[in-house]
């Protein structure tokens, strides 16, 4: 009905020398010729160019679960760190023990990292063992030097404030973590995690405790994701096993301290790993995106001809 009215309209508005000859001038989708139609006129072909759900991806449930395992793994690492801190605070874990075990784990992880590196990458980016040793020496010396200062930092701040700050920072760490590419660590997530660990470590009863806690935090938050990324790239069969192992470790460790915490963590892990992918796959059927010629133009430039 609308198009009939429009046709009547433009048949009335046609003016010019040949207006008596043909009633309807066919509308063309051009603007450089004066046409008897208004500029925003469209004819019945318009809606035929509508496309629905063009770029949709078909998710498979178990693939999504495997990727979501990474998120659950990160939450469990945070839980493991908190468990270690709780043990240190209650005096059940000596700082020397923690230091030696961190050192052993670091060496093992380094060895594994070197084993998993493919040959091509070793040739193109040779990072010598000396450079790694230098980095490690810098970390350890700075941490050891600053730990008496760090220990007295939160002396005058109340316990509730410290706990609240650490909780907010660890949450920020989880939210801002680069799950897709964790190998160069994201600044905000790493910094938030280190800030939270400094806040918590300064509550411990000695500067050696602080030093041990900070080394452990470095291991858990900075070095472990790099190793996991290497595992994910080069040994994809073992990656889910590692994630599951970390999750079990987190739940078990937290359970030895407080059952409520372990239960909460288990629920969170289950919902993130199994429930959220299910929701994602199920809700795809309600997706209704429309695309058409009215979309903004996207320019896909091929810059490879400009680069050597």
């Amino acid at each position, binding site marked *: 009905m609308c198009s009939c009215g429009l046709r009547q309209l433009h048949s009335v508005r046609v003016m010019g020398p040949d207006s008596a000859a043909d009633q309807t001038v066919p509308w063309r989708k051009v603007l450089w010729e004066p046409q008897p139609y208004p500029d925003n006129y469209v004819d019945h072909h318009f809606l035929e160019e509508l496309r629905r759900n063009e770029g949709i991806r078909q998710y498979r449930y178990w693939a999504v679960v495997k990727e979501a395992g990474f998120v659950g793994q990160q939450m469990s690492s945070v839980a493991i760190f908190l468990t270690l801190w709780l043990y240190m605070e209650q005096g059940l874990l000596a700082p020397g023990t923690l230091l030696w075990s961190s050192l052993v784990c670091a060496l093992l992880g380094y060895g594994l990292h070197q084993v998993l590196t493919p040959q091509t990458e070793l040739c193109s980016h040779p990072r010598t063992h000396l450079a790694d040793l230098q*980095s490690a020496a*810098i970390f350890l010396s700075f941490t050891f030097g600053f730990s008496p200062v760090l220990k007295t930092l939160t002396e005058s701040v109340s316990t509730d404030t410290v706990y609240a700050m650490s909780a907010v920072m660890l949450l920020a760490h989880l939210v801002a973590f680069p799950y897709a590419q964790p190998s160069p660590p994201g600044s*905000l997530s790493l910094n938030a995690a*280190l800030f939270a660990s400094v806040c918590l470590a300064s509550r411990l009863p000695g500067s050696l405790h602080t030093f041990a806690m900070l080394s452990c935090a470095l291991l858990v938050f900075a070095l472990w994701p790099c190793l996991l990324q290497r595992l994910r790239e080069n040994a994809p069969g073992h990656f889910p096993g590692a994630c599951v192992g970390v999750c079990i470790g987190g739940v078990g460790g937290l359970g030895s301290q407080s059952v409520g915490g372990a239960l909460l963590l288990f629920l969170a892990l289950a919902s993130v790993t199994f429930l959220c992918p299910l929701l994602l796959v199920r809700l795809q059927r309600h997706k209704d995106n429309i695309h058409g010629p009215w979309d903004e133009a996207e320019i896909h430039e091929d810059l490879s001809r400009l680069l050597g």
Partner: protein
Amino acid sequence: MSTCIQLSHRSEHMRSISSPGAASSHIEFMRKANTVVSVLVDVALGILLMSWLYRDEHVAALASALVPAADRVATELEQLLQWLMGAPAGLKMNRALDQVLGRFFLYHIHLWISYIHLLSPSVEQILWYGGLSAGLGLTFALSLLSDMVALLTFHIYCFYVYGARLYCMKVYGLSSLWRLFRGKKWNVLRQRVDSCSYDLDQLFIGMLLFTILLFLLPTTALYYLVFTLLRLVVVLFQGVLHLSVDFINSFPLFALGQRICQPYRLAGTPPPPLNWDYTHPNRLWTGCPTLQGSGLGPNRQPEPPDLKPSEQAAGKLKQTRKT
């Protein structure tokens, strides 16, 4: 040193007064007359001050009151620092940094008091010779007083400088490390904040320093605030002294006297808009409105020049009607 500034101003005034030849315009004449009168009034007030000072052993009394006053100030400062080293106003301070800063400033005060005690035998002599400068004018005495106050409170100035430097460095470091926290960097070339991918060591050490600076901020800020307020008090007192010196230097007494005694010499066309004398930024413009057109007698009122011809004619008609 405000005494030197005052000396230079006075020498300039003397040069302007003693230049040969009469004044070229009325403004020049008024300026010279104002300068002469203000110098005379200044010297008169100074001689009055001297006569009060050298009579009845006032100098000795002042000298004997000065050193105990400086001691009192130092004791008050020590008490203030002890209060800061405790828990001032219930604020949470970092104990270690508090102790370090407090001890450092206490040692400074101790040095200053030793210096004052070293000078105490010669205070009377200094005051006696300083009082002689009042003979040159009250302004000189006031500027000398301002300089002496500056010397006596030199330790407060030092504290302020230390506190301000420490606080500025801390704020600068904190802002730079906050940018590192978010993963950004200041681009000096483009003068803007850009994203930057840092190395692991840079992130780690930057994070440690950021935490340390952040938790030590309240302590430094408090010391900075306290010493800035102290310095403000001293600066206010010196400001009052300088203001009175400038007032005596530049108040147009001659013009005021003429207005009262001989107003006809000042009558003239409406003055041009006031402009400040930019060569002497502390002085008001001491000229007077120009007197255009000689030959006006004492009792004749000048015609207002901006009436329209029709209104002028109407005015003249009114006058003729009255007569």
